[in-house]
């Protein structure tokens, strides 16, 4: 099984060298979801992850002629993605403002987590942030994250496309992040628990 996969991958890489977009797409589908998951664990922020993934795959395409399948493509692409993500992480680690943003990103992204942490203050902050969203965006966030509806259901319910739902969610998380950074810069908040969660 593993050898077959390896063989197919070598074939895809070979086709990509001959400018095959189809082969590139297949490689993208094989690796993008798992790399997304991986980088999100470190960066906590979809936008940063997407920027890095875009760079990674554009590099793969632009340097397609230099890729040597025998050297192990998986290790190669993982290393490249990790490297870029760690660079960014290190930059964040050195900058107080970015640190706060990282924390806020984590809050906004893990809104939906089932865990119940009875931290009333945090729950209040998050709720405030959600209230500050534009109504439609708030509705999409609540339906997807709190009511646990699928994107498709929400899209149909609101008469919009699935990609609009996902874009609105990313914007909502960004709004929440910005709201928290803007309103809770003070040090007392810094002592709040880092893992972020919502319970109301």
């Amino acid at each position, binding site marked *: 099984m593993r050898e077959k996969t390896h063989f197919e991958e070598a074939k895809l890489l070979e086709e990509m060298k001959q400018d095959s977009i189809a082969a*590139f*797409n297949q490689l993208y589908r094989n690796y993008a979801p798992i790399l997304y998951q991986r980088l999100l*664990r470190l960066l906590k922020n979809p936008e940063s992850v997407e920027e890095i993934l875009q760079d990674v795959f554009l590099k793969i395409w632009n340097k397609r002629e230099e890729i040597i399948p025998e050297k192990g493509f998986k290790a190669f692409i993982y290393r490249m993605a990790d490297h870029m993500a*760690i660079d960014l992480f290190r930059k964040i680690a050195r900058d107080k403002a970015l640190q706060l943003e990282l924390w806020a990103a984590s809050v906004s992204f893990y809104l939906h987590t089932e865990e119940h942490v009875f931290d009333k203050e945090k729950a209040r902050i998050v709720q405030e942030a959600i209230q500050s969203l534009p109504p439609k965006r708030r509705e999409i966030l609540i339906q997807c994250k709190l009511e646990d509806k699928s994107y498709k259901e929400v899209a149909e319910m609101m008469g919009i496309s699935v990609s609009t739902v996902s874009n609105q969610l990313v914007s909502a998380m960004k709004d929440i992040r910005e709201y928290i950074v803007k309103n809770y810069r003070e040090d007392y908040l810094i002592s709040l628990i880092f893992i972020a969660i919502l319970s109301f």
Partner: protein
Amino acid sequence: MALDKNDKTYKLLRAFINDQLERSQLEELFTLIEEIDEEQLHTAIHAILDEEHTPENLDFIQERVDLLQEDILAKIIPEQTRTSQRKLFNIRLAIGIAAMLAVVFTITHLWQRRENFPPEADHGIASTIMPGGNKATITVNGRDFELDANQGELMLGADSLFYADGQLLTTTGVQQSVQVKTPLGGQYQLTLADGSQVWLNAGSTLIYDTGFGTDNRALRLEGEAYFDVTKNPDLPFTVEINGQQVEVLGTAFNISAYTEEPMVKTTLQRGSLAVANNTQKLILKPNQQAILDKNEKKIATHDVNATSIVAWKDGIFDFHGMGVEECMRVIARWYQLDIVYKEKVPSVLLGGKMSRGVRLSTFLEFLEANFDIHGEVTADRKLIITANNR
């Protein structure tokens, strides 16, 4: 030297990645990270990310990955297909292909309708009427430049204009005002300063002012154009048409807004797009078209096949679903004709595709053989349309 798994930094890092770190420990983590070297940090993070982990947010990730794929492909594909598209736009080659296509077309249709084959139709003048080509004039800060018909694609840099093959047209300095105008029977492809591409159809004008690509991405359009817009969330791309605004972030769409047409039609091929006038604002999905009725000032949307509507930019007329009048206006703009209906306008829905590189006579044969509509051209370029009586 790699960090030990029991080392404090490693433990905190691991808790952070697994979302188990408290906010109060975050600062400690960041301080500790400063004390280890680059390689140690990399090794530790690789190792933690490689650990077994239950996947989360799969729905979200799949959706984001799909969207991102479109963005990435948009950055890759233009570079790949640009040469072939340019060739299609190169009118001399197009005529070659077109002649071939036309023969195939004519033969097929004549074969199908052999019993209706008109006795050696008199297309004397029609066969001398050539199709349109790559023609346009650009006016920058009040200076006019005729664009080279052998080129077909112009790049509008911030302070210079050059053709797609790199040949410089002129340097401009700061551009206060830019206007690109195609005559009837002309078309041209443009790459704007922000990387967006525009295909300008016959009898159309595109205008923009100072700061395009840096301070704004605002254009005005008359006529028809296809836009493939480079994504830039910070700088919305807007097109102003008489009575309507279109706003996008990064997407591909077609606008047909000729003054002689009763409707302004905005068709979305990919991405998303907002159309607005003073009273309404609508969001389009791919393969939807917004129609602004100029008299009623109302916008309505309906589903269309976008590929068919934007076929013109690849050198093809797609008559699918067109009425006779609309089709004739398209033809009139490309072959520089005035249309005259001898009796009343034949009320049939047309169909079929034809190359934009053929002589007028080929179109008339196509019309006659398939739709029983007869067209005759006069010396002063009037096309007289009659419906054949059965």
